[in-house]
């Protein structure tokens, strides 16, 4: 096989990973702090794409500004979801929040169909259909923007978590909840930050990919499944694991498509996830169970 084709698939893999790595990061954050596998993040991703669309259409805001609309409003939605659903369930068995999270995902997706309709929606990219090409590899300018913006957001998240006081508080809470409480970290404040950050990332991620292809309210389904596979692959609650997992899964599935058929791409993602569970039940970078 030609090496430039392989490089093309590798770049495609990076892009595919970027469509769900931010959701994976958010899932991991929320799981770390509150032990909730928050599937609703997939629906919030979809809402982010629609907020971007409506902000551009009805408010006439430019695309780049509409990204911040998605980030901001979805961050609020994530917190409302926590307050209305997860917080009342705190202290009950874990399966309750899991089922609630799945329920919220489906409810929001169906509300989406009701409110936004089931027709395809498309958002115009400020880059139009322009492409870069180098070494016989092609990538649209918009996808390039998605990749750079995603890396930048991961970097900002890292800065927040490792270099700020409340970021440290959030990490402390995810490493040992009782100890963090005993040094004076307030769980309610940390929850607001975790849900705001995770949902904000999901929302802006949805808005980032909105111009790539026309979409419907079922947009978040595959994203949340792949993000979940990434988190399990990388180790539940490990942030670096979630990011690494997303890139390994995304690149593997895309490169594998070069050899087999694209029909198998999801099978490869989940195959990898199950495989790692056999070899390292705690995930690639997870703590021992």
């Amino acid at each position, binding site marked *: 096989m030609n090496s430039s084709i392989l490089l093309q698939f590798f770049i495609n893999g990076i892009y595919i990973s970027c469509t769900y790595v931010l959701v994976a990061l958010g899932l991991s954050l929320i799981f770390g702090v509150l032990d909730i596998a928050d599937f609703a993040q997939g629906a919030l991703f979809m809402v982010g794409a629609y907020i971007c669309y409506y902000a551009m259409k009805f408010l006439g805001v430019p695309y780049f500004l509409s990204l911040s609309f998605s980030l901001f409003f979805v961050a609020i939605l994530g917190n409302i979801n926590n307050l209305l659903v997860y917080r009342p369930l705190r202290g009950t068995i874990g399966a309750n929040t899991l089922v609630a999270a799945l329920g919220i995902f489906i409810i929001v997706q169906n509300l989406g169909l009701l409110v936004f309709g089931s027709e395809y929606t498309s958002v115009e990219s400020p880059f139009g259909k322009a492409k870069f090409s180098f070494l016989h590899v092609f990538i649209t300018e918009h996808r390039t923007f998605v990749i750079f913006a995603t890396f930048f957001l991961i970097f900002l998240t890292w800065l927040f978590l490792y270099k700020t*006081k409340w970021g*440290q*508080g959030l*990490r*402390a809470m995810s*490493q*040992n909840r*009782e*100890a*963090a*409480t*005993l*040094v*004076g*970290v*307030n769980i309610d404040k940390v929850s607001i930050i975790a849900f705001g950050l995770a949902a904000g990332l999901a929302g802006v991620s949805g808005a980032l990919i909105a111009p790539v292809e026309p979409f419907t309210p079922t947009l978040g389904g595959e994203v949340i499944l792949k993000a979940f596979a990434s988190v399990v692959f990388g180790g539940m609650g490990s942030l670096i694991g979630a990011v690494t997992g997303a890139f390994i899964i995304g690149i593997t599935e895309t490169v594998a498509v070069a050899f087999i058929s694209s029909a198998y791409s999801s099978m490869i993602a989940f195959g990898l996830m199950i495989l790692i569970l056999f070899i390292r039940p705690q995930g690639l970078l997870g*703590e021992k169970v």
Partner: protein
Amino acid sequence: MALLEIKSISVFYNKIKAVDNLTLFVEKGELVTLIGANGAGKTTVLRAISGLIRPRNGSIIFKGIDITRMRPDKIVQLGIAHCPEERKLFPRMKVKENLMMGAFLRKEGVGKTLEWIYSLFPVLKERENQLAGSLSGGEQQMLAIGRALMSQPELLMFDEPSLGLAPNLVKKLASTIKNLNQQGLSVLLVEQNVEIAFSISNRGYILENGKVVLSDSVEELKENDMVRKAYLGG
């Protein structure tokens, strides 16, 4: 008025009564120990003081302020630190980061406290950039104490600090606690190692099934037949 006053609190885990109508106090500058078998309710008393669990009734007064239903972070701010059972460090943070977490609510003078802790436990300074999870048991205990001290508490509560430590380290730990106490820190010490606890404490409470069955000065407790039989091996 005592520094800490617990007035007949009862604490439940769901329907199980873990602490039953318990009353105790700690005077400023005292080192008080809480003794009892596993499941006697010692840890629960500390958790109630820290605000991790709410007593169903009774009250907890610290420096004259009712903290019975106060949030844990407010309780830390008032000057109570809790060095929990099994250390409970932040394993994926560096030693220094763990210590800084102890000062989470403080704004000023943190550097000075850090230096003081490094002078108490020089090994923590040597290992400041190592992950807490990579420390030995003794070093982890020093880190847990250091982290608790970083909040500049007036009352420091220890939950089974000797657990899992080699006998020579247990002695060293006891003298560290005594030392801190002599520097003016009030201490409430929960221990299974009764001999060690008695060797450094002023007063003690004996807990059985969530109730105080005996409380006295350590000298008197050591002479008590029941205590000798049940806790000091005859």
